[in-house]
């Protein structure tokens, strides 16, 4: 440990200079000798069969190297699902193995040519005939009687405590509403890119923009029946991922096409491919019903959610998770259903479930507060449970009431008018809204890391982890420096390569603590190695020390009892070693067995709603978060702000439009799918409590996703406060605001 910890300091991003100067090499830029380029041909129907593919024109187009369809694709086995932790797929759909069409946008051919432009042009010349079948496309027709999934992210699909419906009927105050959110698409600025080079029939290297290096390696091994050891996956820089850069068909097809072409092949998805080939966030329909006493305490909390997924994909988006953990109630009626549609698979998009689920729950609480004529923040504070309301487990650390107090003071919540449509600035109505955020703490099993000391006293930490812009390389170097007792500039952190020890996927806001747990294990193994190496003529030898008897500080090992220690450099020098390495596996994530572990937060916002046009502009934001110890205020604040921006997009503009006649995404471009632009975003104030979680490694909890939770609800609640209009379906567009 460093006496003056580096953890907690606003250290600048290590990858910052390389990124702003253009020196960082992203997947689509990695130089590879003899590279060919691929483009996809995708179906224009949602269901049915391919009746014929005419490749005559495409094959004779300039520069074409190879064309692959289901007629000449190699045997490709079904990719293991991410949820199994054996792979990184969201879909069980076969990849180019048959003539069947499962969604509109499914790749039906891949063309390889000398240049990207030639591949793209040749792809436009592939003629595909279809025998379309009646698809499952109309959500409203299919939602009735939708089945319960086997599980929701490993949890039970339903939680029933008492008779919530009966309690509702007799409640003094009651809210019972349906809330809807549309499909969303991840819009990382870096398009999905893959480059594959086979070394021989059984081994390959894949450069991929991914947030699952180890699990991509495992997936490729499974689908092509290869030894994972013969597959290298490299992912140095990822330009945003948000849950989508996992394993889809395009990486598998790129690998198969490279083998067919006997050339290294690169495939960069077009933006429309991202919308149609990969899957985004499901639409949702959610009923939230709250029964309350006059004092605001809940007699019933009902949250029933229906989401969608592709055919046979099995991903149930966890919309009801906030309702399971946030508030105390006498009875619960929680239920999830899934409708299978002929659409791309549902995938994880930043705070899957919690973001859209909190829209319904947190709007309903606002409606209840209005009915009871109580401040919405006070209603929430009055529902604070002593233990997890549906499992009964004690909370490991939960400081929501403190976040409410701090946030209310910092935002000036007391100055809010409780009367809707009562504040105006020229043509703009002004309103304020609040919503609670929560996101589960997760530490996925399986992460490993190594620590290598060199004779100059520097350390290199290696793990196959991911830097998608959130600061991994920086914060892990900070943590390792403290843990090893080294200055920050003597610690390297290497990641993004399956040759490094296996890592967990960067998902579920779990990567940071998962890596930390594996670094702890590696450092412990290293300590044992150092002690072994130090004997018998080291000052440490006399201590007869085991790993528990020494501590890593001041660049070396020192007995805890205060006896003389020795620097790493001296130990290595004495032993004549150039370097010393040790690897460790993270301890099993048992901390969640006995405790309910979650991140929390509260979102406050001010909106301005134009009286004439109904345009909504967010003018002020504050998020206060309870996410354990913060390693780096600079990168954490950026994570919170980015998530809030994404939440504002979901509140006001973002909607992936499917034509329900064809199942086709219509607005498959950044011109027509509206993520927020700078002009939509006010200065965003963020704050955090920083109380270390006693059960989490280093006391840290995830910061990447909780910042998006509650955002859309806070906006909707503020719009209601500004205008008196309650919008229950996202996005909140001018026509809805004006009731036109």
């Amino acid at each position, binding site marked *: 440990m460093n006496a003056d910890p580096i953890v907690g300091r606003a250290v600048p991003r290590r990858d910052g200079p390389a990124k702003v100067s253009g020196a960082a090499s992203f997947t689509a830029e990695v130089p590879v000798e003899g590279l060919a380029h691929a483009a996809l041909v995708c179906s224009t129907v949602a269901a049915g069969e391919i009746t014929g593919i005419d490749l005559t024109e495409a094959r004779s187009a300039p520069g074409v190297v190879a064309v692959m369809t289901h007629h000449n694709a190699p045997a490709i086995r079904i990719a293991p699902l991410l949820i199994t932790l054996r792979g990184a797929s969201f879909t069980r759909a076969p990849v180019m193995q048959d003539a069947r069409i499962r969604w509109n946008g499914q790749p039906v051919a891949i063309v390889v040519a000398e240049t990207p432009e030639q591949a*793209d042009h040749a792809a436009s010349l592939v003629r595909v005939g279809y025998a379309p079948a009646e698809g499952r496309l109309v959500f409203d027709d299919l939602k009735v009687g939708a089945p319960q999934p086997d599980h929701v992210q490993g949890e039970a699909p339903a939680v029933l405590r008492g008779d919530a419906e009966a309690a509702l009927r007799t409640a003094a105050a009651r809210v019972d509403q349906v809330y809807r959110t549309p499909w969303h698409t991840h819009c990382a600025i870096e398009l999905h890119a893959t480059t594959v080079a086979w070394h021989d029939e059984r081994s390959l290297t894949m450069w991929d923009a991914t947030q699952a290096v180890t699990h991509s390696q495992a997936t490729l091994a499974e689908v092509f029946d290869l030894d994972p050891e013969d597959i290298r996956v490299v992912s140095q820089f990822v330009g945003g991922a948000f849950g989508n850069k996992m394993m889809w068909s395009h990486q598998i097809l790129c690998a198969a096409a490279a083998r067919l072409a006997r050339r290294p092949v690169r495939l960069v998805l077009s933006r429309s491919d991202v919308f149609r080939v990969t899957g985004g966030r499901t639409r949702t329909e959610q009923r939230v019903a709250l029964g309350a006493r006059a004092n605001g305490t809940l007699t019933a909390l009902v949250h029933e959610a229906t989401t969608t997924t592709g055919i046979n994909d099995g991903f149930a988006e966890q919309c009801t998770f906030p309702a399971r953990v946030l508030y105390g109630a006498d009875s619960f009626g929680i239920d999830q259903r899934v409708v299978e549609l002929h659409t791309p698979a549902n995938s994880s998009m930043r705070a899957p479930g919690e973001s859209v689920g909190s829209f319904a729950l947190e709007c309903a609480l606002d409606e209840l507060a209005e009915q009871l004529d109580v401040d919405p923040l006070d209603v929430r504070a009055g529902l604070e449970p002593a233990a997890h309301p549906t499992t009964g487990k004690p909370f490991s650390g939960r400081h929501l009431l403190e976040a409410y107090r701090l946030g209310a003071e910092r935002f000036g919540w007391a100055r809010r008018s409780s009367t809707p449509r009562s504040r105006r600035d020229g043509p703009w109505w002004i309103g304020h809204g609040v919503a609670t955020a929560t996101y589960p703490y997760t530490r996925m099993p399986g992460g490993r890391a190594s620590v290598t000391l060199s004779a100059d006293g520097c350390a290199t930490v290696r793990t196959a982890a991911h830097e998608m812009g959130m600061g991994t390389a920086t914060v892990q170097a900070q943590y390792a420096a403290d843990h090893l007792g080294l200055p920050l500039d003597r610690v390297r952190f290497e990641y993004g390569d399956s040759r490094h020890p296996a890592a967990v996927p960067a998902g579920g806001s779990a990567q940071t603590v998962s890596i930390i747990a594996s670094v702890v294990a590696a450092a412990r193994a290293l300590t044992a190695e150092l002690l072994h190496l130090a004997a018998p003529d080291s000052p440490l030898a006399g201590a007869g020390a085991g790993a528990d008897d020494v501590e890593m500080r001041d660049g070396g090992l020192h007995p805890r009892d205060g006896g003389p220690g020795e620097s790493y450099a001296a130990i290595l020098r004495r032993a004549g070693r150039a370097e010393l390495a040790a690897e460790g596996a993270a301890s099993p994530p048992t901390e969640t067995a006995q405790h309910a572990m979650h991140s929390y937060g509260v979102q406050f916002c001010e909106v301005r709603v134009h009286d004439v046009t109904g*345009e909504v502009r967010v003018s002020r934001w504050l998020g206060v978060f309870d996410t354990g110890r913060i390693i780096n205020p600079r990168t954490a604040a950026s994570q919170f702000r980015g998530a809030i921006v994404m939440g504002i997009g979901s509140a006001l503009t973002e909607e992936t439009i499917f*034509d329900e006649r064809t199942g086709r995404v219509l607005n498959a471009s950044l011109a*027509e799918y509206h993520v927020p632009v700078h*002009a939509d975003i006010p200065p965003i104030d963020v704050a955090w409590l920083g109380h270390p979680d006693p059960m989490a490694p280093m006391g840290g909890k995830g910061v990447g996703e909780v910042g998006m939770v509650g955002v859309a609800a806070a906006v909707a609640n503020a719009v209601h406060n500004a205008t008196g209009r309650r919008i229950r379906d996202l996005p909140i567009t001018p026509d809805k605001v004006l009731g036109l």
Partner: protein
Amino acid sequence: MKPFTYQRADDVASAVAAAAATPGAAYLGGGTNLVDLMRQNVERPAALVDVSRLPARIGIGTDGRLWMGAAATNTDVAADPVVRRDFPIIAEAIVNGASGQIRNTATVGGNLLQRTRCLYFYDTGARCNKREPGSGCDAVDGHNRMHAVLGASPECVATNPSDLGVALAALDARVHLAGPAGGRTVELLDLHRLPGDTPHVETVLAPGELITAVSVPPPPAAARSAYRKVRERASYAFALVSVAALLEVRDGVVASARLALGGVAAKPWRAAVAEAVLTGAPATRATFDRAAAAALADARPLAHNGFKIPLAQRVIVSTLEELS
């Protein structure tokens, strides 16, 4: 993208000659729309004749009109001191369009000829009479929230996306053309055609004709003007509806009025009927309400765009109130 040849023209005559000599040629201005459409295989020109180096001068001509070379960038027009002083509605319309990066590249001529943003037009997997004549229209019974409420036909319900065009429509602008058969001038309001049963024919331009300049007469000296655009996203979004208005009020009576609408039709829509209602009437809310009603009297909603009618009316009334 289909392979194409490229040549840069140094003057109008060589541009017209090059296009005439090359079958399947298209003029390339800033390329902010055409290149996107080529990437989507919606536009498939065999040749591009780059006209972005052609005259781009902005200034008052000897005829007293504002002249803008067709190759002037939107940014240069919006930043021009004369435009900002004497034709502020032009600058206002431009800066409400696209993004800074696009405006830096997009040209005046290209802006007027940009294609619709209809989602079905952009998707070669969908039916579109504009893209493939006779194939049908998937928008008319499909997702048509952004589509036309005025002047549409059963064959096409697409809208023109230009902001600049709406301001120019209100200003009685003229468009100057050069072509294989020589030069001519058309009124901006006559440049675009309504879809009828030939939605693929969007303008009155003959094959090979090129916009060389746009000229605008000075607006009435006492008129006040405004461009108002409604959109969900605060920037880089096409109009749900937009309104360009010039209003001259003397002694509480409307002396002259010009009103044009965007986002409602296949062309910048001049609301002449509303202008007739306004002219000579008292400059009151009641008059403005009647004008707004008249402006949209012929509007026909589709399944998802009915909101545009009352929204346009609200914006018309509020803009006129602000100008009166």
